[in-house]
Each structure stands twice: as structure tokens, then as C-alpha cells.
């Protein structure tokens, strides 16, 4: 599978095992599009995607499903930039990525470049940090997650 993908999208595959294939983040969308369009691969549906914090890098894992051939393809991309982790959005290939990418951004802090509506989803804009990162609980003790005051109060109000 990895050899076919490398032939179809040159320079995309980094490494592969029997279970998954890792692609270069900058070639990710090309690889997904090729897997989607190729009749043998027929990755018609983005079944699942999630981010994994591996301590020294992030992984974005795509589970692609072929409904006609009934097989699953697992594609991974590794991101080494902890501060500005970003990967191209797969939304142009799979509309089903709309909410899944927002979820990964919200909880893991991975930006999806080109996503039409990349906002926090479960948490609010301005929430400090990204909870599913492994270093989330190392946020300094005086920094409590949550709003500093009730939304209807002004900051300067005396009690």
C-alpha cells in the first residue's frame, strides 16, 4: 500500500508498517486525495481522525474507510513543532473533517491550515492551553482554567 501511495504521490511516504503509513505533513492532502480517488484504494470516507501527543511530537491519525472494498487505511502525520503545530486541512477532500478537525484543534491544539471554520468547539475562545496535551497539567498553579470573573461582571468591580 505504501509503495503504491509513494508511486501515486511521489515524496509523500515517510515510513510504514503493516498497520499504518506515515506521510509528510505538507503532502498529506495530496496523499489523502490520491487515496480517495484511486479506485483500488477507494478511501471514500474519513472514518475517524484524532491527535495523539507522543511527548516529542504530535501525531494526527486518519482512519480512512473504503465502503466498496471493505478495508481500512490508517494514515499518520507527525508534527515536531510543539509551539505551532499545524497540518493542512483535509476538508477539501472530506467534508466530514469539518467537526473532527475542530475537535482536534480545540483539545490538542493542532491547527488545520485551510479549514473554513477553525474555532474552539467544546471550550471557549481564550481558554488557556489545550487539555489533551501531555503538558497541560503543568500549567502554573496560579493559573486556573476558567474565566477570571463572571461574564456579566466587569473586571474592575469592587466587592
Amino acid at each position, binding site marked *: 500500500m505504501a509503495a503504491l501511495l509513494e508511486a501515486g504521490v511521489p515524496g509523500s511516504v515517510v515510513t510504514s508498517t503493516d498497520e499504518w503509513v506515515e506521510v509528510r505533513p505538507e503532502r498529506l492532502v495530496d496523499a489523502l486525495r490520491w487515496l480517495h480517488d484511486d479506485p483500488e484504494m477507494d478511501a*471514500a*470516507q*474519513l*472514518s*475517524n481522525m*484524532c491527535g*495523539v*501527543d507522543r511527548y516529542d511530537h504530535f501525531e494526527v*491519525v486518519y*482512519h480512512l474507510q473504503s*465502503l466498496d472494498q*471493505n478495508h*481500512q487505511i*490508517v494514515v499518520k502525520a507527525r508534527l515536531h513543532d510543539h509551539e505551532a503545530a499545524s497540518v493542512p486541512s483535509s476538508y477539501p477532500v*472530506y*467534508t*466530514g*473533517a*469539518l*467537526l*473532527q478537525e475542530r*475537535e482536534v484543534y480545540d*483539545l490538542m491544539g493542532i491547527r488545520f491550515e485551510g479549514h473554513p471554520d477553525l474555532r474552539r*468547539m*467544546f*471550550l*471557549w475562545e481564550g481558554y488557556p492551553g489545550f*487539555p*489533551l496535551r501531555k503538558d*497541560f497539567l503543568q500549567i502554573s498553579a496560579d493559573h486556573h482554567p476558567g474565566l477570571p470573573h463572571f461574564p456579566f461582571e466587569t473586571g474592575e468591580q469592587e466587592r
Partner: protein
Amino acid sequence: MTTASEPYVLNIGPQHPSTHGVFRLRVVMDGERIQDIDMVVGYLHRSMEKLAEERTYTQNIPFTDRTDYLAAMSNNLGYCLAVERLAGVEVPERASYLRVIFAELQRLASHSMANGTFINDAGAWQTPLMYMFREREKILDLFEMTCGARLTTNYMRIGGVAFDPPPEFYPAIESLIAEMPTRIAEYTELLVDNEILIARARGIGVLTAAEAINGSITGPMLRASGVPWDLRKAEPYCAYDQFDFEIPVGHTGDCYDRFMVRLEEMRQSVRIIRQALDGLPSGPHKTEIPLALRPAPGEAYARVEGPRGELGFYVVSDGGPAPARFHIRAPSLINLSLLRQMAVGAALPDAIVTLGSTDIVVGEIDR
């Protein structure tokens, strides 16, 4: 004379009967037509995926009940299958059969609820819902006599199920599945040709097969669009390959087809339960596993056909007693990916019916 109109914003929810939980829709309306729709979620976010990283594999099972609290058994099952795949645990055959029986009972209960609330949204206030609650109560009684809980069952275990059903379980389930076909026929008679339901649901919220596949839609919604895709057939888990059942599909992919697919799936579930009860093997109902299971480093993705769609669990192990990463593929959330496409241009009451037909459970959306 022309009248000028300007768009206005309407908030539906967070507390609203048709959102089935704490879920908010922010709708931009132009008169009665929807110009834009946006969902605001997170009111029930309990950060289960993070909490799971601090707890052992067995301690995480009760969390999975509380994601989709209308289908706790299916969630238990999906999670246990993922950990079993990760750790290479074998499941006794009796446990597989019991899992099938309880997962299908759960599907009956969940589809009763889904169809009842859908009809509720379409305007038949409460009466059909109460009919369907009648059967759901009996299913929850079966859960209660087996594992002591009605909703958050915590019944499946890694390597099997927690308890063998007690002796009084068998006559109760026999009478239930003898009664179910009559009840489903009753719903069919009451609702399927109902003029109001057809007027409210036919041609509303249509998704074509290609749109649904590309939009990651799964479960009854995908099948209503005419795609015969069911993980119980495509990737049989537990003992599903030994049972004879059919995959109902719709033709147009509208709200009415989704309702019909769910109704027909209830019939098929009864068939599966009948076969599983007849073939229920004797033997142990669970294998012993270490209390603090430490699977070898690796990852596993297991999925089941939950009542709402593909219910997947992605578990990553780093060799420790707790998962390094625990991700739930929540069909309720992902089935909303195309909400904008289904609702924009429709009238407000149609959007409510569309939302009802997607059958969301907010606990699962937010996790």
C-alpha cells in the same frame, strides 16, 4: 409594494425540548427561512478523554456509559473490544453471545427513544413517545435484573461480561421478544402512513449517498441515503457473523427514510436476539485478566455499529496501566457535520425535524 426584511439571529437552546439535551443552535433567519446555522456545544464537556489517561483500563469502562447514556451497552462493548484487541485478550463464546444480546436490546431501547422523540419533534406530542417508552422500560428492567443499573450499565468487562444473567432474565426476555413484533407492527400501523408525519418528514433534510459518505455520516443516516453499510456485516465482531439478519436501506435519504430505517432495524434486532438466545452456549462468561492490565505499547482502533452509527474507540498504550491516549469516535457529533447543508434554506420547523432525525445524544457530542 415590496417589504424589506433583514436577517435576525435566533437561539434555539441550550435548554429546549427539541435539542434533546444541553445543545444550542444559533440560527440566522430571514423571515421563516434559515440563512445560516451554527451549533454551539460543550455544555456537557467532561473531558473524558483526558480523565481516561489517569485511570486503569478497567476503571475507564464506566466513563463509556456516560458518553452516550442512551446506548451504554454499545459504548461498553466498543471500548472493551478496543482494549481486547490492544492486549490480545480472548473472549469466551458465551460472553460474545451475551454481548450481542445486550447490544441489540440496547439498540431496541435507543431506537425506540430516537423514533419516539423524532415523532415528538414532528408534532405528535408525547403520545407515540409514551408508547415506545413502554417497551423501553421493559428492556431497562432486563438490564436492571442483570447488572443492577438501568442506564449507566457498566456491564461489559475486558474479556467478557460482568455477570451471567439471573434465571428470571430468560422468561422476561422471552416474553419481551415475543411481544416486540406486535408492538413494532403497532407503531407501523400508527405512524408509517400517518399523513402529518409524511408531510413533515418527506423530502426534508435530504442527503444523497455521495454526500453522506464524504461527510463521514454513518449508521441509520447513511443507510437511509441508500448505502447498505453496517459494521455488523462489514466487519463482524462478537458473534454477528453467525446470525441471519438484513440491512434495511432507504431510497431518498430524507428524515422519513431515517425513521423507517430505524423502525426496520428494530425488527432485525429482535431477529438477532431470538437467534442469539437459541444458540446461547454454556461456559464461562468472562476470562480473568490482570487487575492492572498493561498492554504492550501499541494502538488499537475498534468500532461497533452503535445505534447512532460507527462508534469507534482508539486506544494507545505506552506499556503503562492507563491508556496513553483514549479517543472516542462519537457518531452523534460527526453525523452533525452536514447539518448546515441539510438545514440552510429550509424553514425553521424543518430544521427541528432534521435535527430530530439525526438522533443526537449530547453526552456523546461533548464527552
